[in-house]
């Protein structure tokens, strides 16, 4: 068992365990903080997959942006100022069966599939990808990059408009 495997299993356990806490925790605050560890775990997995830039981006955006947003959402939509911010659950049994089935199927699929594998896949040395990504974004992926910019712009404007405090005089009917 080399270092790579140890690191992989460590991050795998962190990711799956924290995700399980996120899902099964009754307290939404616990879920939110548990999600933080999931994102860390996933970022670690990214590094193992030779995606250092993605790992950093994952931390920056998910942990620094999305998770904070989710926490704000939790805070803003809780009508009671209580420590126990519990959330109800639905259809536990059918959902469990369903998800169990789903896991089985997915696993079976991944296991049985005859994936195309690069010959030297395991031999590729870890190297930084920031330069390549930067080149790609302004050359081959320029159009998706620009469209993504526009989507972000629209999302910012739309979110700001929807979430702002309503002016009684200019009520938008739903």
């Amino acid at each position: 068992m080399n270092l790579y495997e140890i690191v992989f299993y460590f991050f795998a356990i962190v990711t799956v365990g924290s995700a399980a806490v996120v899902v099964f925790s009754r307290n939404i605050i616990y879920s939110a903080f548990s999600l933080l560890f999931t994102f860390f775990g996933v970022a670690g997995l990214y590094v193992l997959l030779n995606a250092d830039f993605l790992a950093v981006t994952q931390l920056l955006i998910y942990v620094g942006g999305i998770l904070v947003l989710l926490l704000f959402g939790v805070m803003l939509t809780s009508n009671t100022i209580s420590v126990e911010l519990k959330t109800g659950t639905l259809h536990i049994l059918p959902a469990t069966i369903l998800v169990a089935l789903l896991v089985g199927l997915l696993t079976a699929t991944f296991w049985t599939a005859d994936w195309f594998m690069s010959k030297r896949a395991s031999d590729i040395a870890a190297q930084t990808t920031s330069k390549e990504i930067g080149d790609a974004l302004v050359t081959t992926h320029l159009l998706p990059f620009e469209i993504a910019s526009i989507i972000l712009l629209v999302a910012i404007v739309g979110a700001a408009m929807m979430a702002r405090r309503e002016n009684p005089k200019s009520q938008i009917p739903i």
Partner: protein
Amino acid sequence: MTTITLTHFLFISAILFSLGVYAVITRRNAIMVLMGIELILNSANINFLAFSRYSGLNIEGQMAAIFVIILAAAEAAIALAIVLNIYKRFNTVNVDEISLLKD
């Protein structure tokens, strides 16, 4: 020579995906549903990077993952704005209580 193969990563991704789905299905709170979605998106990203790494398409998979992250950020912002509006209107964020689509 490592024993960690593509399939390992795919298994992690599958578990993560299933947990996300479970959260989306079972949780009443809209914020929790969003968290489930984030889990699903992360599982997808793991898949992208794993295939990218093991199929020799190093940069392409990472580009896709970048766009997924961008969209996830935008989605999170929009979704939270919607959740806030729902909360203002129905005074709840429990998705099972909001079934306007039915009528």
